[in-house]
C-alpha cells in the first residue's frame, strides 16, 4: 500500500492516473470513479490484445519477407553480389550487441548466401508476398499489416525477453509489455486476471517476458493451464473439499475480516485484502469455465486444428485466447510453441515446414473467428518472434542447411482492431539483412500496442524509475487505421 499511496500523492502525470485506476480496482476509490476510458490518454482502438510469440526466431525470408535475390546469388558471398556488403554497413554493429562470454565478442558472420528454402507468391487482392508454408494464412493477408523492418540487438535467445521488456540482457530489466498494459488499464471482467499467459513462460529464464518487475507482482501475467480441473498452478482446492465448503470458508474469512475492518475503518490495506479474497473466490469459479474448451462446438475446434496432432497445441491455446478476450481479459500472451522451437541453425527447411504447419491453420482460424464473432474491432492480434535469421548459411560445425540468429532485420505482423488491412510497412534490403531506414526497435511495437489500448507509452512513468527513450519507443503510425495526431 505504501507504494500506491506514494503514487497517488505524487500527482505526476500518468502515475497518478494509473494509481487511481489501481485504487479503484482495489475498492479504495469506489462510487465516483471515472469510467475506464477516462483514465486513458486517448480513445482506445482496441479493448484487448492477443500477443502471439514464436520462440526461437523464425526466418523472416522464409515466412513473410521473401527474398528472390537469395536464390539468385546462392553460394556467393555478400561481397560477390551487386548490392552493398551489409556486413560493412555501420548498422551491422549498431543493431547488434553480443552477450556471450567476454572472450567471444561478436558472433561469427556467415557471408555465404543460402537460397530460399521455400517458394512464395502474391496473395489476396493486396498482392502481398508470403511463402508457401502458410496456406491458411495466405487467405488472410488482406487483413494483415506486416512490419518488415524490425530490429533488435541481442543475438542470443535472451532476445525473447528483450522482445517483451525492451531491454538487452545486459541492461536493467524492465516490466514486460503485458505488465504495462495491465498497469495502465482497468479490468473489464472482475472475475478473471487481466493479463493471462497461455503456454508460457517458455522457460524459467524467460519469465521476464511476462513479469512486471518494479510495477509489482499484481501486474505480472498469470499463467493458466488449459485444464479446467486445475487451471491455476497454485492454490488448488484440497482434493476432497467441495466447492461449497470452500465457498463457506471464503465467506467466513470475509466476514471476520469485515469485523476487523470496523476496528480499522480507514485501513485501505485491509479493505483491499477483503476484495482480494473475494476476487480469488470469483476467479476460482470463473477460470475453469474460461479455459474449458469442451464448451466449444466440434466444428470450431476442428477449424482451429484441434484434433489434428500437428496443430493441437497451438489450436487449443489460440482458441483459449479467443475465449479469454471474449470474457474481457486485456492482454493474452500466447506461446503456441515451446522454447526455442523455431531455432533452425540446421535443417531449416524441415524445421520451418513443421513449425509453420503447427501454427498456420490455428492462427488463420483465430483471425477468421474474431471477424465472425464481431471481435475484430475490439481485439488486436500481434504475431512476432525474437529475431530473424541470417541470409547467410550457418557454417558452424560444418553446417549446410540452416541460418543463424539475426537481430538486424525481421518481420512481425498485426491484425484486428485499429490495424490497416492488407498492408506492408518497411522493408529489409535486397538480401534481407538490414531493416531499412530507421527501422523499428522492439519498443516501437510496444508503443503501438499500448497506443491501440489508449495508452501513451511516453507518459507511462513511475517516480524513481528511470525509463529511457529507447524503452518508450515510437508508435508505428503507418499500420494504424487512424494514426496518432501529434500533440
Amino acid at each position, binding site marked *: *500500500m*505504501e*507504494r500506491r499511496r*506514494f503514487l497517488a500523492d505524487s500527482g505526476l502525470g500518468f502515475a497518478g492516473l494509473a494509481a487511481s485506476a489501481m485504487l479503484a480496482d*482495489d475498492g479504495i476509490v469506489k462510487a465516483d470513479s471515472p469510467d475506464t476510458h477516462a483514465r486513458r490518454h486517448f480513445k482506445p482502438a482496441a479493448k484487448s490484445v492477443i500477443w502471439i510469440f514464436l520462440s526461437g526466431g523464425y526466418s523472416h525470408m522464409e515466412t513473410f519477407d521473401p527474398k528472390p535475390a537469395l536464390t539468385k546469388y546462392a553460394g556467393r558471398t555478400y561481397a560477390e553480389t551487386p548490392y552493398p556488403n551489409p556486413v560493412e554497413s555501420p548498422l551491422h554493429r549498431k543493431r547488434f550487441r*553480443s552477450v*556471450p*562470454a*567476454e*572472450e567471444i565478442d*561478436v558472433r561469427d558472420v556467415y557471408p555465404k548466401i543460402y537460397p530460399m528454402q521455400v517458394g512464395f507468391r502474391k496473395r489476396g487482392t493486396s498482392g502481398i508476398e508470403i511463402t508457401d508454408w502458410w496456406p491458411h494464412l495466405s487467405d488472410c493477408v488482406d487483413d494483415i499489416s506486416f512490419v518488415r523492418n524490425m530490429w533488435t540487438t541481442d543475438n542470443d535467445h535472451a532476445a525473447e525477453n528483450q522482445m517483451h521488456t525492451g531491454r538487452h540482457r*545486459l541492461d536493467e*530489466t524492465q516490466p514486460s509489455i503485458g505488465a504495462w498494459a495491465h498497469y495502465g488499464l482497468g479490468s473489464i471482467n472482475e472475475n478473471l*486476471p487481466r493479463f493471462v499467459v497461455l503456454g508460457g*513462460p*517458455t*522457460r*524459467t*529464464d524467460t*519469465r521476464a517476458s511476462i513479469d512486471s518487475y518494479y510495477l509489482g*507482482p*499484481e501486474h505480472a501475467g*498469470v499463467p493458466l493451464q488449459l485444464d479446467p480441473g486445475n487451471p*491455476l*498452478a*497454485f*492454490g*488448488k*482446492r*484440497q482434493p*476432497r*473439499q467441495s466447492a461449497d465448503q*470452500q465457498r463457506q*470458508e*471464503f465467506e*467466513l*474469512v470475509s*466476514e*471476520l*475480516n469485515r*469485523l*476487523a475492518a470496523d*476496528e*480499522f475503518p*480507514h*485501513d*485501505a*490495506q*485491509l479493505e*483491499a*485484502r*477483503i476484495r*482480494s*479474497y473475494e476476487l*480469488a*473466490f470469483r*476467479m476460482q469459479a470463473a477460470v475453469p469455465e474460461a479455459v474449458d474448451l469442451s464448451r466449444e462446438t466440434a466444428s470450431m475446434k476442428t477449424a482451429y486444428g484441434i484434433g489434428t496432432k500437428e496443430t493441437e497445441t497451438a489450436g487449443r491455446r489460440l482458441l483459449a485466447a479467443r475465449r479469454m478476450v471474449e470474457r474481457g481479459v486485456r492482454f493474452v500472451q500466447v506461446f503456441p510453441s515451446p*522454447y526455442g522451437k523455431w531455432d533452425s541453425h540446421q535443417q531449416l527447411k524441415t524445421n520451418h515446414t513443421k513449425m509453420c504447419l503447427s501454427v498456420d491453420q490455428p492462427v488463420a482460424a483465430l483471425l477468421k473467428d474474431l471477424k465472425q464473432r464481431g471481435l475484430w474491432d475490439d481485439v488486436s492480434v500481434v504475431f512476432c518472434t525474437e529475431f530473424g535469421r541470417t541470409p547467410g548459411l550457418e557454417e558452424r560445425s560444418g553446417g549446410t542447411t540452416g541460418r543463424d540468429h539475426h537481430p538486424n532485420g525481421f518481420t512481425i505482423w498485426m491484425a484486428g482492431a485499429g490495424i490497416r488491412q492488407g498492408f506492408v510497412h518497411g522493408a529489409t534490403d535486397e538480401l534481407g539483412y538490414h531493416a531499412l531506414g530507421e527501422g523499428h526497435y522492439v519498443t516501437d511495437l510496444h508503443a503501438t500496442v499500448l497506443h491501440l489500448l489508449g495508452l501513451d507509452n511516453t507518459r507511462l512513468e513511475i517516480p*524513481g524509475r*528511470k525509463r529511457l527513450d529507447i524503452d518508450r519507443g515510437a508508435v508505428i503510425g503507418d499500420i494504424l487505421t487512424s494514426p496518432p495526431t501529434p500533440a
Partner: protein
Amino acid sequence: MIHSVMIIPVNCEVGLDPFRLLLIGLCVSSCAAAANAGDAPAIALLKAKCFGCHGAAKQEGGLRLDVRGHVLAGGDSGPAVVPGNADSSQLLRRVLSSDDDRMPPEGTRLTQEEVWLLRRWIDSGAGGLPEHDLNTKWRTHWSFQKISMPVPPVIEDSQRVRNSVDAFVIHELQKAGITPSPPADRATLIRRLSLDVTGLLPEPKRVQQFVSDKRPDAWEQLIDEYLASPHYGERWARHWMDVARYADSTGYEADQPRTIWAWRDWVINSFNQGMPFDQFVIEQIAGDLLPEASKEQIIATGFHCNSIFDGGVRWQAVVDRVNTTAAAFLGLTTECARCHTHKTDPVSHREFYELFAFFNDASATSFSLGETGYLDQVPKPDESGRMPPVTLAMKATPQPTHVFGRGDPAQLGIHVSPNVPGFLPQLRIAGDRRASRLDLARWLMKDDHPLTARVTVNRVWQRYFGAGLVETSDDFGMQTPRPKHAALLDWLAARFMQEGWDVKKLHKHILLSATYRQSSNDRRELASADPGNRLLARQVRIRLPAEIIRDVFLDAGGLLSRKIGGPGVYPWQPEGILVNRATPATWKKSEGEDAYRRGLYTWTWRLTPHPHMPLFDAPDGITACTKRSRSNVPVQALTLLNDPVFVEAAQGLGRRVLRGPTGLSAVGSSDPERLKRLFQITLARDPQPREEQLLLDVLERQRKSFHGQPAAAREVCGDAEADRGQLSQLAAWTVLARSVLNLDEFYTRE
C-alpha cells in the same frame, strides 16, 4: 611519465582494436589530469561553438562536452573523444565532415586553425575540463555532508517523550500541528515486537505476563529478552540476505547449485553475538585481507560471492559487486555510471571503473571449511553424493582494470586503479601502494563518511516502520530530497557511530521510543495532513514477508522447527516448479523437522524459487534489494487457504487448541475457552463478542455437519489416527483455525 603523443603515431589506425586502445589508455591515464597550455584555447572554442547544444542546459544526441566524464563517455553515437588520438575521435571527424552529420550542423565551418586547436587538445590528452559538473548542487546535497550529532529539541509537553527519538519526531509533528497517536495496547505491542525482532509469534503465556507486568521497565525487559533470542539473528539475517542478493544457485541460464550457506550462518551468528556493524562490514568486504584472517573472517567474504554468475562473464559479477556495495552502504545507484557518467549523481564513468577495480582484484573461490583453505577447483560431490564442506569466499587476484566504453567490455578504454568517488572523503593510502578492498571497507566505516551510517540506520528504521526516514532506501543521491526527519536520521547515525556501531543499541533506541509504540490505527485526518505518514504520527500495519508468513503459520500450528543454521532445506512445493529449466534441478522433499524449518533456510534456486517466495514479494536475488514491496493479489488468498503446508498448519492448530498443552493459565475445555486459546495463539488477544458469537455459531454447525460424515471430518483434520469420538470436534476446530489463520490480522503486524 611517458606521454602518449610521444609513442603513438597520431595517424595510426586505431578503429575498434581493443589492444591499441588499451595501449593508449595506459599511456594517457598518467597525464589525463594534467592541464596543457593548449587546453584553454581549445575549451574556449568548444564553449563558443559547442556548449550551446552540448552543455549543461541541453544535450543534443545525449552528448555533453563541458565535463570530461561526459566527453569520454560520449552520447548516442559513442565516445566523442579518444584522449591522445584525435584521428580516432568522433569530435574531430564530425567537425571535418562534409556529410549531413557535420558539426556544427549549421553556420560556418570551423577554420583550419580551430580544427588544429582541437586536434592538439585531443592529442595531448583532452585535459582541462572538470571531471564533474561543477554547476550542480552536489556540494551542498544533504546526504553528502558530514554527519554531526544534532541536539534533540526540547519538547514542552514532555509526557509523550520517552527518549530522544521522540523529541525529534514530536518536534516535527508539533510544527505541522499534528498530535502523535496513543500507544498501542500491550498485546499488540508484544506481538509487534516479537514479529519485528524474531519473526515469530509471542508465546501466549508471555503475552499474559507482559499484559499484567506492572514494572516500569517491563517494556525494556521485553526488548532485551527478544533481542537476546537466537531467532533475532535469523530475522535480521534475512533482511541482510536481501541486500546481499542471497541464493543457493548461480542464476543465469545454467543456474548451477552453489554452496554458500556457511555465509548465511555467519550472518545469523554475527547478529546474535552483537558484532559491531563496522566489523560486520569490514569482514564481509575484505575479511580475507585482514592480518592473519580467521576462517570465520574468510567465510564472511561470501557476501560478495552471492552475485549471480554466468561462467565466462566474470565482469558482470564484478559490476554487480560495485552496484551492491553502492546500494548497501552508499545509498547510491551506480548502475548508470557503468555506461556513462551519472546524469544526476556525481559519479563519473571513470569513477565507476575505479570502484570496479577494487572488486576486479578479487575472485569468488571455493574455500574449505576443513583445514585446506582455498581450493583450486570447485569441489565435486563424493561417491555417496555428499559435498565436501566448503563455501565460497573472496580471494585476491589483482589484475588491470580498464574503463569499458559505453559499458561494453569489448571497448576497453583508459586504465584505472582502485579508488573511491571524488565527491566523498578521500581514500588515504600511505605510500605508493595499490588500494585494496580492505582500504575500501575501512573507508566506508570511517567517522567522517557521510553515507554508510545514514544509509544503515535508515534501513533499520525501515524494518520497524514499513518505510525508511528516507523512503528510497537505496538512493540517497541528488534525486532524493532531504527527508522530513533528517535531524533524527543524523542523530541515529551519529549515535550509532559514537556507540561503536552497536546494532542492538540502535534497535533499542528505536524500540524504546513512544514513536515505535504508537497505535497503527489509521486516522482519517492524517489522510490529508500527512498522507504518506512521513511525519510518523502513527505506526503502520505491515503485511509479513514471504518467509515469515509461512513461519508463523507453522508456529501457530505447533509444527515449526527451531533449528538454526545448516544447509538449505526442501519443504513441500507444488509440482512442476522445476520443469522448463535450461539445466535440470532437483527438489528431494526434506523429511522430518527439515520439512518445517524457518523460511530463510528454504533452498533457493534463483530461477525457480519456491513459488511462495515471489508470490509474497521475496526478492529475486538478481540484484541487491533494500526494500521489498508488499503486494496483494488473489492468488495469495488461494495459496494461504489451500496449499498443503498452510492446510497442515491449520490442522496442527486445530489439534493444539483442542488438546493443549497450552501454557495458558486458564486451561479450559469449554468452547469459549478454546476459542480464546485459538485467538491467543494466533492474534495474541481475546475474541471480540461479535467474533465469538459468529465463530461459536459456525463451530456448532460444523460439528453437527461433520458428525454424520467421519470420512469428510478425517479429511479436514488430516488426522488418520483421530479418535472416532473426537473427529467432528477436531474437524470443526480445524475449520475455525483455517479461517483465523487467513485473517489479514494474522499475517499482518499491527
